[in-house]
């Protein structure tokens, strides 16, 4: 399933597969004052990949997401999304280029309805101008209707359709996480960054989430990069995993390789017994 691990290195040398990578991160660094939050972080995601980014608390995972989405600007390194260099672009332009994300500490538009949250995500694909929205031209009405249909089908996919008119802040926690993913998908991304989607979910919900992430990847044809603390989930669904510790990449490979890596075990020891939580 698009998991082109082996040919990656060859492809890069041949200068052929560079365009094959959807997201190509190389040598990205960021420090805050004296703290080196992320050091020469490199990662390649092919079309349809489902990769994981793990590491102990404070390892710099969310910082990586913030660097990728333009919330922070990297001190060094390059990030190429579908062939476009996105370092230095504002977050909204990066979203336009096809990168979308969820937030670790849920950041929904609390006072807006569930449907409206998703429709905000769809805004950047809108063609009609603000002027025609005020005039409510035929084009704008068609565009609004299409947007509503798309948003509703996304909500149906996530089982939230019957709560479409509810205010987002009133949703239960698990549904809020799902809504964040729905909102992110509404931007029609190529790459979807999920920041701890399972946080705060019970084990039943986690199982459902695991299937859902796979279905999202397959049905929406997106490449997924996942930050997750739940090792069971990550090992289960990710084809490739990168491990961060103190901003450094200490290991990368298939779940089996990562689990066997002594450095990873060392990084997690003390916090957890082995990699399996």
């Amino acid at each position, binding site marked *: 399933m698009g998991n082109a691990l082996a040919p990656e290195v060859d492809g890069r040398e041949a200068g052929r597969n560079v365009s094959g990578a959807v997201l190509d991160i190389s040598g990205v660094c960021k420090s805050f004052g004296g703290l080196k939050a992320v050091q020469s972080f490199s990662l390649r995601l092919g079309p349809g990949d489902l990769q994981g980014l793990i590491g102990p608390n404070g390892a710099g995972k969310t910082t990586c997401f913030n660097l990728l*989405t*333009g*919330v922070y600007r990297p001190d060094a390194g390059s990030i190429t999304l579908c062939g476009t260099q996105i370092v230095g672009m*504002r*977050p*909204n*332009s990066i*979203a*336009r280029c096809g990168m*979308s*994300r969820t*937030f670790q500490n849920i*950041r*929904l*538009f*609390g*006072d*807006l309805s569930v*449907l*409206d949250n998703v*429709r*905000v*995500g*769809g*805004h*950047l694909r*809108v063609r009609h101008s*603000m002027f025609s*929205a*005020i*005039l*409510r*031209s*035929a084009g*704008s009405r068609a*565009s*609004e*209707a299409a*947007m*509503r249909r798309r948003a509703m089908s996304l909500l149906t996919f996530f089982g939230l359709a019957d709560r479409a*008119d509810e205010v987002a802040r009133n949703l239960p926690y698990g549904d809020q996480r799902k809504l964040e993913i729905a*909102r*992110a998908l*509404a*931007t029609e991304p190529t790459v979807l960054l999920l920041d701890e989607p399972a946080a705060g979910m019970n084990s039943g919900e986690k199982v459902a989430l695991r299937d859902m992430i796979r279905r999202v990847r397959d049905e929406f044809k997106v490449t997924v990069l996942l930050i997750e603390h739940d090792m069971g989930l990550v090992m289960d669904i990710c084809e490739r995993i990168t491990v961060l510790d103190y901003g450094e990449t200490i290991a990368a490979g298939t779940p089996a390789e990562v689990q066997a890596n002594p450095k990873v075990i060392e990084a997690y020891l003390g916090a957890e017994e082995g990699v399996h939580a």
Partner: protein
Amino acid sequence: MVWPLAAALVYALVVHFGGRTVLDPYYAILLVTIGINITLAVSLNMVNGFTGQFSMGHAGFLAVGGYACGIVTYYGSAKVFGSTAMRQGQLCGMPLETAGLPFLGGGEWFFLLALLVGGLVAAGLGYIVGLPSLRLRGDYLAIVTLGFGEIVRVVIQQSGKVIKAGGGKSAEQLIRDAPLYTLPGSVGGSLGFDNLPKYTSLFWAHLAAAATVLVAYRLKSSTYGRAFLSIREDEVAAEAMGVNTTKFKVRAFVLAAFFAGVAGGLYGSTLGVALSPVDAGFQKSFDIIIMVVLGGLGSISGAVVAAVVVTLLPEWLRGVAEYRMIIYALTLILLMIFRPQGLLGVREAWEMPLLRKWMGGKRGGT
């Protein structure tokens, strides 16, 4: 697309002819003021309510629009019609028989043009002020816009005298002799820009109010309005979802400035009003802010209701006029403690749970 515009027109006509027949002059002008205040409150709501930024200089745009419109109707009339006097039009507040002029006479179309000029000048200024300051954090914007209003006030105070008849010459002659570029600077300084032709009628005031409400509502219920609201809800998330927050804030600001400018044109041309630099000051801005906060930041119907209430309140409180502002102030403080979302919050009147139940179904949405 056409029907709401027609409805706005019909509404304005009904208010105009209904108001003129039923109300005596004093209350007719009060009704004009209500229309102007609705325009002001609903337009400020686009910035403070929709995008969650906090502008405190709305009166600055009101004054700029008022003066720009005044320059067109006063000096422009002199140039175009050869007279600074009002050319037809229905003096609002005057009984029908004395004003007995045709509805929508020639000068009134000129007035409409002047209103648009006022709005566009204010919008242009809004762009110049908004572009740098909307990059700032919310409360800095409050200071910058408050400062902007005060600067407008100070600058207008420095302007020269209005060119009026004197020294044996008529105003028209003097205006003809004065170089064109001096005219925008001759707006009366601290004395105010008086004797403007008083074109504002119930029709124009309420047409502007209806148009503002219509535009605000259509925006709010469109994808652009949702983008505005997303900024207010969570700026970081809005950016991440592809909303260019700076651009949208500037849009809201410019649009609000436009309508404030139009409202300023209407205000300056109302019978009994002499446009003066004080109109740009913070006190006027505070009045508008009170309407928006009272109605609920983000709620258009709330802003309309609050504009009506705040305009009428001084009438009811006339016995205790001294305490009017104190009552406003206490209302603001208590509101923030006990009902910080204002009268209606971000919602519209028909979206309130109680009304929804009455109407027995859901409305709104697309």
